[in-house]
């Protein structure tokens, strides 16, 4: 992607939404408090200006009714529309898991490939701003486990823009998880869609590979800076999409560095990092000089107080320690 102009994540997402609504006349967007809250763009600004430009027929505030909304947008997708539903916090999607998992994800398969289900569920996950246990979970692993779903975890403003364009154009149900502590991250944003299943090398290195997403990706880049000062060159890979995912990029990097660390904010145990480690061990054992190391959230809900919240989420120091452990 050519570097475009600098933008914060929420503006990049907002720009993507405007483009999507123009590109796909059959698309519409809806969610709780998406047109009149704050400055008129929902909780984090992503839908700002859409109502004015596209009207109430295509930009709709909904009742607080996740269960019916998640199944309704899935069915609306199978009937020829391209809905984009905002779930204010991904934690709330639990109220409508039937619509996502039993209906949308299985629709194409159960009915023998008759139906496309081009629905995008936009939401946010992650910790860092004191939203506590029921507004801060990282649920990407749960969704990535379900056959039929695509799962997107953009880690930069540019990826947020490009991947949302692809999510909206996809004929599969797509879970698009923004990170609530990255809406004000600034970075270059291009004008093109970014295909799913293509990892990004966020930093090149030769001594160890760190695969990480979103907030842990940014901690990993900080860790890489620190380690570089000690002469350890870390290659940082952002998978960008957890399904489809790009193991080849991981194998190629490990072929170079021979060491692997996987980091995410989702609970470490049974997390997607375990999957990446397992696949690497199975397929590229000969490329590893040491056991891979996982870094992830603690097996605890996200607490409220800042000192506690920081204690359960991986830090830059945890990444540094993990890299050193695998290199030891």
């Amino acid at each position, binding site marked *: 992607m050519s570097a475009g102009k600098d933008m914060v994540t929420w503006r990049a997402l907002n720009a993507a939404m405007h483009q999507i609504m123009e590109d796909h006349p059959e698309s519409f967007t809806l969610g709780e408090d998406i047109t009149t809250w704050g400055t008129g763009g929902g909780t984090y600004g992503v839908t700002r200006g859409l109502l004015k430009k596209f009207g109430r027929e295509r930009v709709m505030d909904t*009742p607080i009714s996740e269960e*019916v909304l998640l199944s309704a947008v899935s069915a609306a*997708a199978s009937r020829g529309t391209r809905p984009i539903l905002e779930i204010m916090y991904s934690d709330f999607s639990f109220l409508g898991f039937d619509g996502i998992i039993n209906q949308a994800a299985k629709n194409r398969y*159960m009915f*023998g*490939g*008759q139906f496309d289900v081009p629905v995008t569920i936009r939401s946010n996950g992650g910790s860092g701003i004191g939203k506590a246990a029921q507004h801060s979970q990282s649920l990407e692993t749960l969704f990535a486990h379900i*056959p039929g779903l695509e799962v997107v975890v953009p880690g930069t403003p540019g990826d947020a823009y490009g991947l949302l364009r692809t999510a909206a154009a996809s004929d599969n149900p797509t879970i698009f998880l923004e990170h609530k502590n990255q809406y004000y991250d600034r970075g270059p944003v291009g004008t093109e869609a970014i295909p799913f299943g293509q990892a990004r090398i966020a930093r090149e290195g030769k001594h160890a590979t760190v695969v990480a997403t979103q907030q842990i990706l940014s901690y990993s880049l900080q860790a890489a800076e620190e380690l570089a000062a000690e002469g350890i060159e870390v290659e940082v890979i952002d998978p960008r999409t957890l399904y*489809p995912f790009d193991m080849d990029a991981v194998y190629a990097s490990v072929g170079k560095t021979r060491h692997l660390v996987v980091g995410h904010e989702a609970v470490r145990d049974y997390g997607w990092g375990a999957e990446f480690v397992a696949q690497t061990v199975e397929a590229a054992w000969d490329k590893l000089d040491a056991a891979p190391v996982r870094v992830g959230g603690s097996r605890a809900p996200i607490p409220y107080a800042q000192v506690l919240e920081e204690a359960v989420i991986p830090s830059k120091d945890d990444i540094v320690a993990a890299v050193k452990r695998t290199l030891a």
Partner: protein
Amino acid sequence: MTEYQANEQGLAGLKLMAKIREFERRMPLLSEEGLIRGSTHPSLGMEAIAVGVSLALTDKDAIASTHRGHAHTLAKGADFGRTMAEILGRKDGYCGGKGGSMHIGVKELGVLGTNGIVGAGIGIATGAALASKQLGDGSVAVSYFGDGASNQGVLAEAFNLAAIWKLPVIFVLENNHYAQSASIDDMVAQPDLTKRGEAYGVPSFSGDGMNLEEVYGLATAAVERARAGEGPTLLVLETYRYLGHMAGDTEIYRTKEEVEAAKSNDPIETLLARLIEAGVITAEEWETTSKELFEEVEAAEQFARNSPYPDVSEAFTDVYAKGASA
């Protein structure tokens, strides 16, 4: 009451009901024979609802059905042979054998699936109605669900959403009095289920689900309302499930007498008697017609039995759209 029933449309409805009954009558037999895996849920006795509602719809309209959904699917126009093939898990089934009895979808007929999750169709039909409104295609959507599903939370959300947005959806509540083995008398404190619609601003009507004409009349009015942009309607239709919840049901939760009493108001027998009385058909002609219908269903069954099982490779297709990484 006689104008509708005493004509060819009434006769067409009678034939469709009888053909569906013959189809459904075979389900326990096929199940005992080991040809149906898992569970299958026949709907003998409930034919007038599926047929009466479907007569008010076109191919462009959508339905979201239930676990007990063969009749809804067939009444909407599905081929009997392909439907049977799906129930037997065969290649020629509508879903290539991937769906089975509880997951039959027919895109070109707007059949958005029978469904293994009780109450799920309520949200799905609401979504189909939302799509109709977005696309402006004038279609309506029907959600069939039972008295058991009426206790699912999605009903409250769907009724409210459909009412505030005036979505063209018709909620058809088939009150067959049992949710698996649970009697509605024990499961709701307010037996008048129309009140649930009224509470959310959904115009609600009750009717005799064993009477084809009554169902058709209520459905037609609801479809007209929906097409005119006036929003959703709830129809609470009284009916009865002659067989158990599924093949193998011991039915210890109800008496034989109760079942026999319900059969005295059989939708097919009652309509036949009226059509004979009105001179639309004679008893002898019906006997011939019945045999023809029987033979059509027999042919459908043979088609299904002769259809091969799907190729094993099909287990791994259609998880994702073609072209997407899967």
